[in-house]
């Protein structure tokens, strides 16, 4: 019970962090899982579950308010239930992934509720603003966090409470080996979605050959990732230094046909 309450508080801290101070990135599975590991008394397990989920979620961020899997709750629940399970470290980590990843995807359906409900709060805030009531405005701002917290805190609490040792071991026994193989593959290929999402917001059409540079450096020349990043930095500087200044910006370069275009801005 105490553990369940602590995990719930941790879930609220994690989502508060990304909406506000953003100093620990608590909503990322690596951090959420590590914290959950500390709470359940198995730090290494929390790190392993969190880090495995993290690699499936690289580049998966909310762009413009889109809903993404709730990796935070997935990592916390996965770690908590895996700690209650049986088996060696590797078996527990596999359990954490087998529970955490589906949980993250399924619980994503709650996220839109947390994003929708504060709409009522902002209409109240409109009223307070018209009255010049700064206390009311502040109250609406802070309490609008309740739906955000609730859609993560409630599933975390319920799962942690239900996850007794016996329940989890039954669950573990019920998971077929093929499913674990499948989950392992899912963990290894999900980063593709993260990278595809990143590429979608980047001008691939214009700079596709930059991808090729990184690929060749890794696939053929076996350059480590830090080396690729440093090389990329050099190319980026080179590219921007050599670019003619007039080519930058939306304003077309002055043409002789328009006599007024010579004015300096």
């Amino acid at each position: 019970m105490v553990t369940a309450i602590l995990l719930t508080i941790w879930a609220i801290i994690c989502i508060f962090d990304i909406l506000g101070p953003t100093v620990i990135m608590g909503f990322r599975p690596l951090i959420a899982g590590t914290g959950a590991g500390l709470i359940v008394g198995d730090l290494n397990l929390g790190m392993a579950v969190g880090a495995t989920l993290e690699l499936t979620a690289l580049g998966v961020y909310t762009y413009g308010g889109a809903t993404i899997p709730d990796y935070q709750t997935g990592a916390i629940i996965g770690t908590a239930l895996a700690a209650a399970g049986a088996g060696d470290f590797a078996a527990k980590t596999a359990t954490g992934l087998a529970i955490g990843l589906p949980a993250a995807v399924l619980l994503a359906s709650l996220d839109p509720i947390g994003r929708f409900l504060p709409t009522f709060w902002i209409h109240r805030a409109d009223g307070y603003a018209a009255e010049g009531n700064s206390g009311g405005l502040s109250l609406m701002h802070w309490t609008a966090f309740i739906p955000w917290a609730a859609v993560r805190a409630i599933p975390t609490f319920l799962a942690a409470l239900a996850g007794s040792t016996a329940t989890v071991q039954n669950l573990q026994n019920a998971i077929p080996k093929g499913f674990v193989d499948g989950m392992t593959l899912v963990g290894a290929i999900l980063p593709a979605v993260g990278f595809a999402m990143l590429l979608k917001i980047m001008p691939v059409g214009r700079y596709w050959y930059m991808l090729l540079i990184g690929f060749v450096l890794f696939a053929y020349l076996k350059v480590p990732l830090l080396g690729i990043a440093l090389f990329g930095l050099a190319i980026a500087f080179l590219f921007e230094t050599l670019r003619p200044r007039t080519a930058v910006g939306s304003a077309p370069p002055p043409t002789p046909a328009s006599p007024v275009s010579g004015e300096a801005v």
Partner: protein
Amino acid sequence: MTTTNAPTGKLERRDLLASFWRYFWSFQISWNYERMQALGFAYAMEPVLRKLFPNDADYEAALERHLVFFNTNPVVGAPLIIGSAIAMEEAGAPASAEGVKIALMGPLAGVGDTIIWALYNSIIFTIGASLALQQNVLGPIFVIVFVAIPYTVARYWQFMWAYSQGRSLATSLASGALERVTEGATILGLIVIGGFIPSIVHIVTTFDYQQTLTVTGPTGTQQVTNKVPVQTQLDAILPFMLPVLLTALVYWLLKRYNLNPLWAIAVVFVFGIIVGWLGWFAPALPVVAAK
């Protein structure tokens, strides 16, 4: 709204800090589908507006005009826009404040999402997760240090810089510096992603086929049957072909059909479970003893 009376108050550093800390602690906690970061923006502006407009009617009008739709990157973008909006309100140019919000939120969201989420975080978290997988507690600590310090410094600096730039901010940003930084970061990001894809996405096929060769040796001619893994053939054509194809396929689905990312994840999830369960594909080929 341009009929608002000119502000009569004078801002001190204390007022700026009050606004900054409101932004810092709680900017997005009231995020909602209808107006996204609007309430957070108004909440951050409130102490400054109270100071600038002692007249209640002006103050109320000012609060209302900052409760309109707003959304940008919360780390790179929002502090810059708040700082500059404060400077313009102080200068008695609320229309300019609205203009700068509308003009900058989209481009800065693009810059911020690319630089902070896509590029910086992916690198930091890949390193942190790799350390954590080796049961090294420095992994998560590394991530927190490289998030907390640079983020906070960058947010504070943007806020104060934008305020001090005031009206000349638009000129500074329009000089092309912003575009150059974005272009540079984009190029760096694409090169890194080009290397990330083969190093982090792991999928190989476990299919193989029988190959019968007729070998003529000193003991005479004999038929030798070998199992040849399909993966070896693929590697000979292009290393990491399957991870690249998979990423390209998901990109195409997202781009062409504007597929919701959640659906893309669900599709890959189901695909992975099925082909992994059937044993057709795996993260890596099992290590076979030589010969």
